[in-house]
């Protein structure tokens, strides 16, 4: 649910980074946080848990400037990817305006990607949101491993597995190195703001 404050001419939207565990959702946010100037970004909040998994969520607010006279504020969230934390994922998805699906290019994660996308579909559906309607962008992460001795999925295979029906924009990425991170953010922000404004105009 976006919030529009007409006294400040400001719109706030919520974008959630979704995907299988250890796929690089938090790394995306960390890269954005490090690369953006302090004028644009707020403080990144990571709920301190043991180990490097996200147990609850990470949160990063951004001010993306103005469209006409409306200031755009985006709040980025990640969810825990592990299957067992579905209650938490549903909680973070509450009021979502746009989703980035961070898929893991590792060959061993092939099924986990599909499982996580199905879980997203299901959780959005529980909130009466159709995955085909909400702004969604895919990021095929860990492309920097191509050429190494770790077996990875080809982009074509990932497209077939995940994006055959949805046909949403996708980007190859390496969240660790920053490749594709801003392309993904730019696309999802654009789509989310457009979607919210369309919804507002039709009110």
């Amino acid at each position, binding site marked *: 649910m976006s919030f*529009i404050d*007409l006294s400040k001419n400001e719109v*706030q939207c919520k974008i959630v980074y979704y995907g299988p565990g250890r796929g690089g959702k938090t790394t995306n946010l960390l890269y954005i946080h490090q690369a953006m100037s302090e004028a644009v970004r707020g403080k990144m909040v990571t709920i301190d848990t043991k180990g490097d998994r996200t147990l*609850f969520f990470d*949160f990063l607010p951004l001010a993306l400037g103005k469209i006409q006279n409306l200031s755009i504020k985006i709040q980025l969230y990640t969810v825990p990817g592990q299957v067992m934390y579905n209650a*938490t994922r549903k*909680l973070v998805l*509450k*009021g979502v305006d746009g989703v980035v699906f961070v898929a893991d290019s590792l060959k061993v994660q092939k099924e986990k990607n599909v499982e996580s996308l199905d879980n997203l579909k299901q959780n959005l559906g529980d909130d009466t949101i159709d995955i085909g309607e909400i702004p969604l962008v895919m990021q095929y992460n860990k492309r920097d491993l191509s050429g190494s001795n770790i077996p990875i999925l080809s982009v074509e295979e990932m497209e077939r597995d995940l994006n055959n029906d949805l046909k949403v924009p996708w980007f190859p990425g390496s969240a660790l190195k920053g490749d594709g991170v801003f392309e993904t953010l730019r696309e999802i922000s654009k789509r989310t703001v457009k979607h919210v404004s369309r*919804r507002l105009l039709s009110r």
Partner: protein
Amino acid sequence: MDLVLSKEAINSIISIIDEDLLRAGADCVLLVDRSGNLIVNRGDPANLDVVALAALSAANFGATAEIAKLIGEDDFTLLFHKGKNENIHFTKVGKGFILLTLFGKDVSLGVIRLKTAKVTEDLLPVLAGEQ
């Protein structure tokens, strides 16, 4: 569903909060929605990251709602965190909003509870009219 609040609605929320809670001694009052958006913040939130506080509070409320379900309740209507010098009181406003009141040790919890109950009642028609 989006929430659009007009200037008039924001102003009435501000005056309800200022009149009852800030006058009663609260240091800072935030109205947030349950998806984590900060709607209004009043008082003196010096050095306080209100955007992060809004997001964490919504999550905190969501997490405790799950605890409520585990013990057979639908939801908890209020939460209270006590610190050494500063305390936070959370109250549910309707289905979609949370009112956060920060207050020091010189203000009694009873007064805050009484005042938040009134503020919650006064805020409901304003928020319901705008959604």
